[in-house]
Protein backbone atom coordinates (compact mmCIF):
# COMPACT_ATOMS: atom_id res chain seq x y z
CA UNK A 1 0.00 0.00 0.00
CA UNK A 2 2.67 2.48 0.99
CA UNK A 3 4.19 4.10 -2.04
CA UNK A 4 7.93 3.60 -2.37
CA UNK A 5 9.75 6.89 -2.27
CA UNK A 6 13.18 7.77 -3.64
CA UNK A 7 15.64 7.77 -0.77
CA UNK A 8 18.78 9.84 -0.47
CA UNK A 9 21.15 6.91 -1.07
CA UNK A 10 19.46 6.16 -4.39
CA UNK A 11 19.62 9.80 -5.47
CA UNK A 12 23.30 10.05 -4.53
CA UNK A 13 24.01 6.91 -6.54
CA UNK A 14 22.20 8.29 -9.59
CA UNK A 15 24.04 11.60 -9.23
CA UNK A 16 27.40 9.83 -8.94
CA UNK A 17 26.75 7.74 -12.05
CA UNK A 18 25.56 10.79 -13.99
CA UNK A 19 28.62 12.76 -12.91
CA UNK A 20 30.97 9.92 -13.87
CA UNK A 21 29.37 9.65 -17.31
CA UNK A 22 29.58 13.40 -17.89
CA UNK A 23 33.23 13.45 -16.78
CA UNK A 24 34.03 10.55 -19.13
CA UNK A 25 32.24 12.13 -22.09
CA UNK A 26 35.17 14.30 -23.31
CA UNK A 27 37.43 11.24 -23.35
CA UNK A 28 34.94 9.09 -25.22
CA UNK A 29 33.87 11.86 -27.56
CA UNK A 30 36.40 14.67 -27.70
CA UNK A 31 34.51 17.51 -29.35
CA UNK A 32 34.76 21.16 -28.38
CA UNK A 33 31.22 21.90 -29.49
CA UNK A 34 29.79 19.17 -27.27
CA UNK A 35 31.92 20.32 -24.36
CA UNK A 36 30.66 23.87 -24.73
CA UNK A 37 27.09 22.66 -25.02
CA UNK A 38 27.36 20.62 -21.82
CA UNK A 39 28.79 23.60 -19.90
CA UNK A 40 26.00 25.90 -21.08
CA UNK A 41 23.37 23.25 -20.33
CA UNK A 42 24.88 22.87 -16.83
CA UNK A 43 24.31 26.56 -16.18
CA UNK A 44 20.78 26.48 -17.62
CA UNK A 45 19.86 23.22 -15.88
CA UNK A 46 20.53 24.85 -12.49
CA UNK A 47 18.63 27.92 -13.62
CA UNK A 48 15.55 26.04 -14.89
CA UNK A 49 15.43 23.50 -12.05
CA UNK A 50 15.61 26.26 -9.44
CA UNK A 51 12.83 28.13 -11.25
CA UNK A 52 10.73 24.96 -11.17
CA UNK A 53 11.03 24.86 -7.39
CA UNK A 54 8.78 27.93 -7.59
CA UNK A 55 6.65 27.16 -10.65
CA UNK A 56 6.16 23.40 -10.44
CA UNK A 57 6.47 22.68 -6.74
CA UNK A 58 5.04 25.80 -5.11
CA UNK A 59 2.77 27.17 -7.85
CA UNK A 60 4.53 30.55 -7.89
CA UNK A 61 5.03 31.57 -11.51
CA UNK A 62 7.97 33.95 -11.39
CA UNK A 63 8.56 35.91 -14.61
CA UNK A 64 11.70 37.43 -13.14
CA UNK A 65 13.92 34.48 -12.34
CA UNK A 66 16.46 35.66 -14.92
CA UNK A 67 17.35 38.44 -12.49
CA UNK A 68 19.09 35.86 -10.30
CA UNK A 69 20.91 34.26 -13.22
CA UNK A 70 22.19 37.67 -14.34
CA UNK A 71 22.87 38.81 -10.79
CA UNK A 72 24.92 35.67 -10.16
CA UNK A 73 27.00 36.26 -13.29
CA UNK A 74 27.67 39.92 -12.43
CA UNK A 75 28.22 39.33 -8.69
CA UNK A 76 30.75 36.60 -9.44
CA UNK A 77 32.46 38.50 -12.28
CA UNK A 78 32.70 41.72 -10.27
CA UNK A 79 34.02 39.94 -7.19
CA UNK A 80 36.77 38.38 -9.28
CA UNK A 81 37.60 41.55 -11.20
CA UNK A 82 37.31 44.18 -8.50
CA UNK A 83 38.06 42.38 -5.26
CA UNK A 84 40.72 40.03 -6.54
CA UNK A 85 39.45 37.24 -4.32
CA UNK A 86 39.79 33.50 -4.91
CA UNK A 87 37.10 31.62 -6.83
CA UNK A 88 35.66 29.89 -3.73
CA UNK A 89 35.41 33.28 -1.99
CA UNK A 90 33.71 34.83 -5.02
CA UNK A 91 31.36 31.84 -5.08
CA UNK A 92 30.49 32.45 -1.44
CA UNK A 93 29.94 36.17 -2.07
CA UNK A 94 27.64 35.28 -4.99
CA UNK A 95 25.62 32.84 -2.89
CA UNK A 96 25.22 35.22 0.06
CA UNK A 97 24.42 38.30 -2.01
CA UNK A 98 21.88 36.45 -4.16
CA UNK A 99 20.26 35.09 -0.99
CA UNK A 100 19.95 38.67 0.25
CA UNK A 101 18.48 39.76 -3.09
CA UNK A 102 16.01 36.86 -2.91
CA UNK A 103 15.06 37.81 0.63
CA UNK A 104 14.32 41.44 -0.25
CA UNK A 105 12.57 40.82 -3.59
CA UNK A 106 10.73 37.81 -2.17
CA UNK A 107 9.53 39.58 0.98
CA UNK A 108 7.89 42.23 -1.22
CA UNK A 109 6.67 40.05 -4.11
CA UNK A 110 5.21 37.14 -2.16
CA UNK A 111 2.57 39.38 -0.62
CA UNK A 112 1.02 39.55 -4.07
CA UNK A 113 -0.85 36.60 -5.55
CA UNK A 114 -0.98 34.88 -8.92
CA UNK A 115 -0.47 37.17 -11.90
CA UNK A 116 0.44 40.14 -9.69
CA UNK A 117 3.27 38.10 -8.22
CA UNK A 118 4.45 37.27 -11.76
CA UNK A 119 4.35 40.91 -12.79
CA UNK A 120 6.19 42.28 -9.80
CA UNK A 121 9.01 39.76 -10.20
CA UNK A 122 9.26 40.88 -13.82
CA UNK A 123 9.33 44.50 -12.66
CA UNK A 124 12.18 43.79 -10.24
CA UNK A 125 14.09 42.10 -13.03
CA UNK A 126 13.64 45.11 -15.33
CA UNK A 127 14.83 47.35 -12.50
CA UNK A 128 18.00 45.30 -12.20
CA UNK A 129 18.41 45.27 -15.98
CA UNK A 130 18.12 49.07 -16.16
CA UNK A 131 20.64 49.40 -13.36
CA UNK A 132 23.12 47.18 -15.19
CA UNK A 133 22.66 49.18 -18.42
CA UNK A 134 22.91 52.57 -16.70
CA UNK A 135 25.71 51.95 -14.22
CA UNK A 136 28.43 51.92 -16.88
CA UNK A 137 31.48 52.45 -14.63
CA UNK A 138 30.64 49.34 -12.63
CA UNK A 139 28.96 47.02 -15.11
CA UNK A 140 30.23 48.23 -18.48
CA UNK A 141 26.65 49.06 -19.46
CA UNK A 142 25.40 47.40 -22.64
CA UNK A 143 28.91 46.15 -23.43
CA UNK A 144 28.87 43.89 -20.38
CA UNK A 145 31.77 43.10 -18.05
CA UNK A 146 34.76 43.46 -20.33
CA UNK A 147 38.34 42.38 -19.96
CA UNK A 148 37.68 38.81 -18.94
CA UNK A 149 37.22 37.33 -15.51
CA UNK A 150 40.50 36.30 -13.87
CA UNK A 151 40.56 32.60 -13.03
CA UNK A 152 43.29 31.96 -10.49
CA UNK A 153 43.82 28.27 -9.67
CA UNK A 154 42.38 26.96 -6.40
CA UNK A 155 42.77 23.54 -4.74
CA UNK A 156 44.49 22.21 -7.83
CA UNK A 157 41.69 23.37 -10.10
CA UNK A 158 42.69 25.74 -12.89
CA UNK A 159 39.63 27.06 -14.65
CA UNK A 160 41.66 28.67 -17.39
CA UNK A 161 42.15 25.10 -18.65
CA UNK A 162 39.17 23.98 -20.69
CA UNK A 163 39.04 20.45 -19.26
CA UNK A 164 38.98 21.82 -15.72
CA UNK A 165 36.25 24.27 -16.64
CA UNK A 166 34.16 21.45 -18.04
CA UNK A 167 34.68 19.25 -14.97
CA UNK A 168 33.92 22.16 -12.65
CA UNK A 169 30.67 23.05 -14.47
CA UNK A 170 29.26 19.51 -14.49
CA UNK A 171 30.29 18.91 -10.87
CA UNK A 172 28.58 22.12 -9.70
CA UNK A 173 25.50 21.23 -11.74
CA UNK A 174 25.19 17.67 -10.43
CA UNK A 175 25.85 18.77 -6.83
CA UNK A 176 23.33 21.60 -7.19
CA UNK A 177 20.64 19.33 -8.63
CA UNK A 178 21.29 16.78 -5.87
CA UNK A 179 20.72 19.44 -3.22
CA UNK A 180 17.57 20.69 -4.97
CA UNK A 181 16.36 17.10 -5.22
CA UNK A 182 16.86 16.65 -1.49
CA UNK A 183 14.89 19.85 -0.86
CA UNK A 184 11.88 18.84 -2.98
CA UNK A 185 11.78 15.39 -1.36
CA UNK A 186 12.10 16.74 2.18
CA UNK A 187 9.19 17.58 4.52
CA UNK A 188 9.65 21.17 3.31
CA UNK A 189 9.25 19.99 -0.30
CA UNK A 190 5.86 18.51 0.63
CA UNK A 191 4.92 21.69 2.47
CA UNK A 192 5.47 23.49 -0.85
CA UNK A 193 3.28 20.97 -2.71
CA UNK A 194 0.52 21.48 -0.12
CA UNK A 195 0.74 25.25 -0.59
CA UNK A 196 0.56 24.78 -4.37
CA UNK A 197 -2.45 22.47 -4.14
CA UNK A 198 -4.44 24.46 -1.59
CA UNK A 199 -2.86 27.48 0.07
CA UNK A 200 -5.87 28.20 2.27
CA UNK A 201 -5.98 24.67 3.63
CA UNK A 202 -2.23 24.65 4.22
CA UNK A 203 -2.56 27.76 6.37
CA UNK A 204 -5.43 26.16 8.32
CA UNK A 205 -3.02 23.31 9.09
CA UNK A 206 -0.84 25.86 10.83
CA UNK A 207 1.71 26.15 8.00
CA UNK A 208 3.33 29.58 7.83
CA UNK A 209 2.72 30.06 4.11
CA UNK A 210 4.65 33.32 3.82
CA UNK A 211 7.72 31.88 5.49
CA UNK A 212 7.66 28.72 3.37
CA UNK A 213 7.23 30.67 0.13
CA UNK A 214 9.99 33.09 1.05
CA UNK A 215 12.33 30.20 1.88
CA UNK A 216 11.58 28.63 -1.51
CA UNK A 217 12.12 31.96 -3.25
CA UNK A 218 15.52 32.48 -1.61
CA UNK A 219 16.67 28.91 -2.34
CA UNK A 220 15.56 29.21 -5.98
CA UNK A 221 17.34 32.57 -6.26
CA UNK A 222 20.60 31.20 -4.90
CA UNK A 223 20.64 28.23 -7.30
CA UNK A 224 19.63 30.48 -10.20
CA UNK A 225 22.60 32.67 -9.31
CA UNK A 226 24.93 29.67 -9.18
CA UNK A 227 23.76 28.87 -12.72
CA UNK A 228 24.68 32.42 -13.74
CA UNK A 229 28.06 32.02 -12.08
CA UNK A 230 28.81 28.89 -14.11
CA UNK A 231 27.84 30.82 -17.24
CA UNK A 232 30.08 33.77 -16.29
CA UNK A 233 33.01 31.39 -15.86
CA UNK A 234 32.31 29.85 -19.24
CA UNK A 235 32.05 33.09 -21.24
CA UNK A 236 34.58 34.87 -19.00
CA UNK A 237 32.27 37.82 -18.59
CA UNK A 238 28.73 38.90 -17.84
CA UNK A 239 26.32 40.50 -20.30
CA UNK A 240 23.10 42.47 -19.93
CA UNK A 241 21.15 39.77 -21.80
CA UNK A 242 21.73 37.45 -18.80
CA UNK A 243 19.63 39.79 -16.70
CA UNK A 244 17.07 40.67 -19.37
CA UNK A 245 13.47 39.42 -19.30
CA UNK A 246 14.17 37.09 -22.22
CA UNK A 247 16.32 35.02 -19.85
CA UNK A 248 13.31 34.49 -17.58
CA UNK A 249 11.28 33.60 -20.66
CA UNK A 250 13.82 30.97 -21.64
CA UNK A 251 13.62 29.50 -18.14
CA UNK A 252 9.83 29.14 -18.53
CA UNK A 253 10.33 27.59 -22.01
CA UNK A 254 12.81 25.07 -20.62
CA UNK A 255 10.29 24.02 -17.98
CA UNK A 256 7.53 23.76 -20.58
CA UNK A 257 9.67 21.76 -23.01
CA UNK A 258 11.08 19.40 -20.41
CA UNK A 259 8.03 19.10 -18.19
CA UNK A 260 7.27 20.47 -14.75
CA UNK A 261 5.85 17.38 -13.09
CA UNK A 262 9.16 15.53 -12.93
CA UNK A 263 12.25 16.68 -11.08
CA UNK A 264 14.57 16.23 -14.06
CA UNK A 265 12.14 17.81 -16.56
CA UNK A 266 13.50 21.38 -16.46
CA UNK A 267 17.10 20.13 -16.85
CA UNK A 268 16.00 18.07 -19.84
CA UNK A 269 14.28 21.20 -21.14
CA UNK A 270 17.53 23.14 -20.73
CA UNK A 271 19.24 20.55 -22.94
CA UNK A 272 16.45 20.54 -25.52
CA UNK A 273 16.27 24.34 -25.77
CA UNK A 274 20.06 24.69 -26.01
CA UNK A 275 20.29 22.07 -28.78
CA UNK A 276 17.35 23.65 -30.61
CA UNK A 277 19.01 27.05 -30.32
CA UNK A 278 22.27 25.73 -31.74
CA UNK A 279 20.74 23.73 -34.57
CA UNK A 280 18.22 26.35 -35.59
CA UNK A 281 20.70 29.22 -35.40
CA UNK A 282 23.00 27.35 -37.74
CA UNK A 283 20.20 26.40 -40.11
CA UNK A 284 18.30 29.64 -40.53
CA UNK A 285 18.34 33.37 -39.95
CA UNK A 286 14.77 33.28 -38.72
CA UNK A 287 15.62 31.27 -35.65
CA UNK A 288 13.07 32.99 -33.44
CA UNK A 289 10.29 31.93 -35.79
CA UNK A 290 11.27 28.27 -35.74
CA UNK A 291 11.88 28.22 -32.01
CA UNK A 292 8.49 29.84 -31.47
CA UNK A 293 6.84 27.20 -33.64
CA UNK A 294 8.45 24.36 -31.66
CA UNK A 295 7.38 25.89 -28.36
CA UNK A 296 3.84 26.42 -29.66
CA UNK A 297 3.76 22.78 -30.70
CA UNK A 298 4.60 21.75 -27.15
CA UNK A 299 2.28 24.24 -25.48
CA UNK A 300 -0.76 23.80 -27.72
CA UNK A 301 -0.26 20.40 -29.31
CA UNK A 302 1.16 18.26 -26.52
CA UNK A 303 0.25 20.35 -23.47
CA UNK A 304 3.07 18.59 -21.67
CA UNK A 305 6.81 18.48 -21.50
CA UNK A 306 8.90 15.58 -22.76
CA UNK A 307 9.57 14.05 -19.34
CA UNK A 308 5.87 14.34 -18.39
CA UNK A 309 5.15 12.07 -21.35
CA UNK A 310 7.80 9.58 -20.33
CA UNK A 311 6.59 9.58 -16.72
CA UNK A 312 2.96 9.04 -17.79
CA UNK A 313 4.01 6.25 -20.15
CA UNK A 314 6.04 4.52 -17.42
CA UNK A 315 3.17 4.79 -14.95
CA UNK A 316 0.66 3.35 -17.42
CA UNK A 317 3.04 0.49 -18.16
CA UNK A 318 3.55 -0.18 -14.47
CA UNK A 319 -0.19 -0.15 -13.81
CA UNK A 320 -0.80 -2.46 -16.75
CA UNK A 321 1.98 -4.69 -15.43
CA UNK A 322 0.55 -4.86 -11.91
CA UNK A 323 -2.94 -5.60 -13.26
CA UNK A 324 -1.47 -8.38 -15.37
CA UNK A 325 0.31 -9.70 -12.29
CA UNK A 326 -2.93 -9.97 -10.37
Amino acid sequence: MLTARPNLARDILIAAVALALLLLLPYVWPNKMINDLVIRVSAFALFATSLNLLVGYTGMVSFGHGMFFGFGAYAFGLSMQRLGVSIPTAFLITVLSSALLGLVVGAISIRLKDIYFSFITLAFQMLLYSTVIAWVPLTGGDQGLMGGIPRPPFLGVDLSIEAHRYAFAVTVMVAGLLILRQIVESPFGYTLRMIRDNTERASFLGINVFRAKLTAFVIAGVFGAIGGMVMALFVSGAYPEFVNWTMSGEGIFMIMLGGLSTFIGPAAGALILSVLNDVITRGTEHHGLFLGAVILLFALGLRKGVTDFIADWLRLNREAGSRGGN
Partner: protein
Amino acid sequence: MLEVKGLFKSFGGVAAISDVTIDFPTGSLTAIIGPNGAGKSTFFNLISGGLTPDAGSVSFNGTSLVGRSRAQIIDAGIGRAFQVARIFPTLTVEESLLGAVTAHRQRAQNITRRFPLPEMRDRMHEVAEMLGLTEKLGVTSANLSHGDQKLLDIALALVLDPKVLLLDEPTAGMGPDERWRMIERVHELWEREKLTLIFIEHDMDIVFKIAPKISVLCYGRLLAEGTPDEIRTNPAVIEAYLGTSHEEAAV
Protein backbone atom coordinates in the same frame (compact mmCIF):
# COMPACT_ATOMS: atom_id res chain seq x y z
CA MET B 1 -15.66 25.38 27.39
CA LEU B 2 -15.97 27.47 24.24
CA GLU B 3 -17.76 30.72 24.99
CA VAL B 4 -19.04 33.12 22.36
CA LYS B 5 -20.33 36.42 23.75
CA GLY B 6 -22.06 39.32 22.01
CA LEU B 7 -20.48 38.53 18.64
CA PHE B 8 -20.95 41.02 15.79
CA LYS B 9 -19.75 40.96 12.19
CA SER B 10 -21.00 42.95 9.24
CA PHE B 11 -19.98 43.14 5.61
CA GLY B 12 -20.44 46.53 3.96
CA GLY B 13 -23.10 47.60 6.45
CA VAL B 14 -25.04 44.33 6.30
CA ALA B 15 -24.96 42.49 9.60
CA ALA B 16 -23.97 38.86 9.02
CA ILE B 17 -23.75 38.04 12.71
CA SER B 18 -25.32 40.26 15.30
CA ASP B 19 -25.19 39.87 19.05
CA VAL B 20 -24.75 36.11 19.14
CA THR B 21 -24.01 34.54 22.51
CA ILE B 22 -23.64 30.76 22.80
CA ASP B 23 -21.79 28.49 25.23
CA PHE B 24 -20.44 25.16 24.05
CA PRO B 25 -19.63 23.06 27.14
CA THR B 26 -16.66 20.71 26.87
CA GLY B 27 -17.64 17.44 25.25
CA SER B 28 -20.96 18.73 23.95
CA LEU B 29 -22.44 18.04 20.53
CA THR B 30 -24.28 20.99 19.02
CA ALA B 31 -25.99 21.42 15.67
CA ILE B 32 -26.24 24.88 14.15
CA ILE B 33 -29.20 25.24 11.84
CA GLY B 34 -30.78 28.10 9.98
CA PRO B 35 -31.89 29.15 6.51
CA ASN B 36 -29.35 30.02 3.81
CA GLY B 37 -27.58 33.28 4.54
CA ALA B 38 -28.29 33.01 8.26
CA GLY B 39 -24.62 33.55 9.02
CA LYS B 40 -23.70 29.98 9.93
CA SER B 41 -20.46 29.80 7.97
CA THR B 42 -19.54 33.33 9.04
CA PHE B 43 -20.03 32.20 12.62
CA PHE B 44 -17.56 29.36 12.06
CA ASN B 45 -15.08 31.70 10.40
CA LEU B 46 -15.24 34.05 13.38
CA ILE B 47 -14.44 31.22 15.78
CA SER B 48 -11.68 29.64 13.71
CA GLY B 49 -9.81 32.81 12.80
CA GLY B 50 -10.94 32.94 9.18
CA LEU B 51 -12.54 36.32 10.00
CA THR B 52 -12.08 38.85 12.79
CA PRO B 53 -15.24 39.91 14.67
CA ASP B 54 -16.26 43.60 14.75
CA ALA B 55 -17.22 43.21 18.38
CA GLY B 56 -17.75 40.55 20.99
CA SER B 57 -15.57 37.82 22.35
CA VAL B 58 -14.68 34.22 21.60
CA SER B 59 -12.83 32.44 24.36
CA PHE B 60 -11.78 28.87 24.89
CA ASN B 61 -11.20 27.62 28.45
CA GLY B 62 -10.84 31.20 29.59
CA THR B 63 -8.37 32.45 26.92
CA SER B 64 -9.54 34.84 24.26
CA LEU B 65 -9.21 33.72 20.63
CA VAL B 66 -10.03 37.08 19.06
CA GLY B 67 -7.19 38.68 17.14
CA ARG B 68 -5.04 35.59 17.28
CA SER B 69 -3.45 34.07 14.19
CA ARG B 70 -4.82 30.94 12.56
CA ALA B 71 -1.83 28.97 13.79
CA GLN B 72 -2.43 30.14 17.37
CA ILE B 73 -6.12 29.26 17.21
CA ILE B 74 -5.22 25.81 15.89
CA ASP B 75 -2.69 25.38 18.70
CA ALA B 76 -5.36 26.39 21.20
CA GLY B 77 -7.33 23.35 19.98
CA ILE B 78 -9.88 24.66 17.49
CA GLY B 79 -10.06 22.58 14.30
CA ARG B 80 -12.40 22.88 11.35
CA ALA B 81 -13.50 21.14 8.19
CA PHE B 82 -15.07 22.92 5.26
CA GLN B 83 -18.37 22.92 3.41
CA VAL B 84 -16.58 22.25 0.15
CA ALA B 85 -13.81 19.80 1.00
CA ARG B 86 -10.48 21.60 1.04
CA ILE B 87 -7.91 19.00 0.18
CA PHE B 88 -4.66 18.68 -1.74
CA PRO B 89 -5.77 17.31 -5.13
CA THR B 90 -2.43 16.02 -6.43
CA LEU B 91 -1.30 14.40 -3.16
CA THR B 92 -2.40 10.95 -2.05
CA VAL B 93 -4.46 10.55 1.12
CA GLU B 94 -1.36 9.24 2.86
CA GLU B 95 0.82 12.16 1.74
CA SER B 96 -1.84 14.69 2.74
CA LEU B 97 -2.22 13.26 6.24
CA LEU B 98 1.53 12.83 6.72
CA GLY B 99 2.04 16.41 5.53
CA ALA B 100 -0.55 17.62 8.02
CA VAL B 101 1.03 15.69 10.92
CA THR B 102 4.44 17.05 9.89
CA ALA B 103 3.13 20.60 9.89
CA HIS B 104 1.42 20.12 13.23
CA ARG B 105 4.65 18.88 14.79
CA GLN B 106 6.60 21.91 13.54
CA ARG B 107 8.62 20.08 10.91
CA ALA B 108 7.15 21.81 7.84
CA GLN B 109 10.39 23.70 7.16
CA ASN B 110 12.74 20.72 7.54
CA ILE B 111 14.95 20.29 4.45
CA THR B 112 17.62 17.91 5.74
CA ARG B 113 15.50 14.77 6.01
CA ARG B 114 13.30 12.86 3.61
CA PHE B 115 9.52 12.96 3.51
CA PRO B 116 7.79 11.27 5.20
CA LEU B 117 9.41 11.34 8.61
CA PRO B 118 8.86 7.85 10.08
CA GLU B 119 7.73 9.25 13.44
CA MET B 120 4.68 10.78 11.73
CA ARG B 121 3.32 7.45 10.51
CA ASP B 122 1.57 6.24 13.67
CA ARG B 123 -0.57 9.33 13.98
CA MET B 124 -1.36 9.25 10.24
CA HIS B 125 -2.58 5.64 10.51
CA GLU B 126 -4.57 6.44 13.65
CA VAL B 127 -6.47 9.26 11.97
CA ALA B 128 -6.98 7.32 8.74
CA GLU B 129 -8.42 4.50 10.84
CA MET B 130 -10.80 6.82 12.71
CA LEU B 131 -12.38 7.98 9.45
CA GLY B 132 -12.22 4.72 7.56
CA LEU B 133 -9.66 5.94 5.04
CA THR B 134 -7.11 3.18 5.62
CA GLU B 135 -8.03 1.43 2.35
CA LYS B 136 -7.69 4.69 0.45
CA LEU B 137 -4.23 5.78 1.61
CA GLY B 138 -2.62 5.29 -1.79
CA VAL B 139 -5.36 7.10 -3.72
CA THR B 140 -4.68 10.55 -5.15
CA SER B 141 -7.08 12.91 -3.38
CA ALA B 142 -8.60 14.30 -6.58
CA ASN B 143 -9.71 10.75 -7.49
CA LEU B 144 -11.55 10.13 -4.21
CA SER B 145 -15.34 10.01 -4.15
CA HIS B 146 -17.10 13.13 -2.92
CA GLY B 147 -17.82 11.49 0.44
CA ASP B 148 -14.23 10.36 0.92
CA GLN B 149 -13.02 13.87 0.10
CA LYS B 150 -15.21 15.18 2.91
CA LEU B 151 -13.80 12.50 5.23
CA LEU B 152 -10.26 13.47 4.25
CA ASP B 153 -11.09 17.10 4.96
CA ILE B 154 -12.24 16.12 8.47
CA ALA B 155 -9.19 13.87 8.87
CA LEU B 156 -6.90 16.81 8.05
CA ALA B 157 -8.55 18.77 10.86
CA LEU B 158 -8.31 15.83 13.28
CA VAL B 159 -4.58 15.42 12.70
CA LEU B 160 -4.10 18.66 14.61
CA ASP B 161 -5.50 17.12 17.82
CA PRO B 162 -8.38 19.58 18.16
CA LYS B 163 -10.42 19.76 21.34
CA VAL B 164 -13.17 21.59 19.48
CA LEU B 165 -14.11 20.46 15.98
CA LEU B 166 -16.20 22.63 13.67
CA LEU B 167 -17.83 20.80 10.77
CA ASP B 168 -19.43 22.95 8.09
CA GLU B 169 -22.14 20.76 6.52
CA PRO B 170 -20.36 17.41 6.69
CA THR B 171 -23.12 15.83 4.58
CA ALA B 172 -23.36 18.53 1.89
CA GLY B 173 -23.80 17.12 -1.59
CA MET B 174 -24.30 13.52 -0.47
CA GLY B 175 -27.03 11.05 -1.27
CA PRO B 176 -29.35 9.86 1.56
CA ASP B 177 -27.46 6.64 2.36
CA GLU B 178 -24.08 8.32 2.24
CA ARG B 179 -25.39 11.05 4.57
CA TRP B 180 -26.29 8.63 7.28
CA ARG B 181 -23.01 6.78 6.99
CA MET B 182 -21.18 10.08 7.28
CA ILE B 183 -23.17 11.28 10.26
CA GLU B 184 -22.75 7.96 12.06
CA ARG B 185 -19.04 8.26 11.60
CA VAL B 186 -19.08 11.81 12.94
CA HIS B 187 -21.16 10.74 15.92
CA GLU B 188 -18.82 7.86 16.67
CA LEU B 189 -15.86 10.21 16.42
CA TRP B 190 -17.45 12.57 18.91
CA GLU B 191 -18.06 9.78 21.41
CA ARG B 192 -14.66 8.18 21.05
CA GLU B 193 -12.48 11.27 20.97
CA LYS B 194 -14.45 13.21 23.60
CA LEU B 195 -14.50 16.22 21.32
CA THR B 196 -16.56 19.34 21.62
CA LEU B 197 -18.27 19.06 18.27
CA ILE B 198 -20.23 21.77 16.49
CA PHE B 199 -21.74 21.09 13.09
CA ILE B 200 -23.82 22.95 10.57
CA GLU B 201 -26.50 20.81 8.96
CA HIS B 202 -29.50 21.31 6.70
CA ASP B 203 -31.03 17.87 7.01
CA MET B 204 -33.48 18.19 9.91
CA ASP B 205 -33.94 14.42 10.26
CA ILE B 206 -30.23 14.13 10.96
CA VAL B 207 -30.17 17.11 13.30
CA PHE B 208 -33.11 15.98 15.41
CA LYS B 209 -31.80 12.45 15.59
CA ILE B 210 -28.22 13.01 16.69
CA ALA B 211 -27.79 16.49 18.19
CA PRO B 212 -28.58 16.76 21.93
CA LYS B 213 -28.48 20.54 21.55
CA ILE B 214 -29.46 22.76 18.65
CA SER B 215 -28.80 26.46 18.05
CA VAL B 216 -30.88 28.23 15.42
CA LEU B 217 -29.44 31.22 13.55
CA CYS B 218 -31.66 33.49 11.49
CA TYR B 219 -30.56 36.70 9.77
CA GLY B 220 -27.39 36.70 11.86
CA ARG B 221 -29.23 36.47 15.19
CA LEU B 222 -29.57 33.57 17.57
CA LEU B 223 -33.24 32.76 17.23
CA ALA B 224 -33.40 29.89 19.68
CA GLU B 225 -31.40 27.16 21.36
CA GLY B 226 -32.37 24.00 23.10
CA THR B 227 -33.00 20.29 22.85
CA PRO B 228 -34.54 18.81 19.70
CA ASP B 229 -37.96 18.76 21.37
CA GLU B 230 -37.73 22.38 22.44
CA ILE B 231 -36.62 23.47 18.96
CA ARG B 232 -39.26 21.41 17.19
CA THR B 233 -42.01 23.08 19.15
CA ASN B 234 -40.57 26.59 19.35
CA PRO B 235 -43.08 28.86 17.54
CA ALA B 236 -40.45 31.34 16.37
CA VAL B 237 -38.35 28.59 14.81
CA ILE B 238 -41.35 27.02 13.14
CA GLU B 239 -42.36 30.31 11.64
CA ALA B 240 -38.90 31.33 10.49
CA TYR B 241 -37.46 28.07 9.37
CA LEU B 242 -39.12 24.74 9.93
CA GLY B 243 -42.57 25.38 8.58
CA THR B 244 -45.49 23.32 9.78
CA SER B 245 -44.54 19.92 8.49
CA HIS B 246 -41.99 19.32 11.23
CA GLU B 247 -44.41 20.45 13.88
CA GLU B 248 -46.86 17.93 12.61
CA ALA B 249 -44.15 15.33 12.35
CA ALA B 250 -43.30 15.95 15.97
CA VAL B 251 -46.81 15.40 17.17
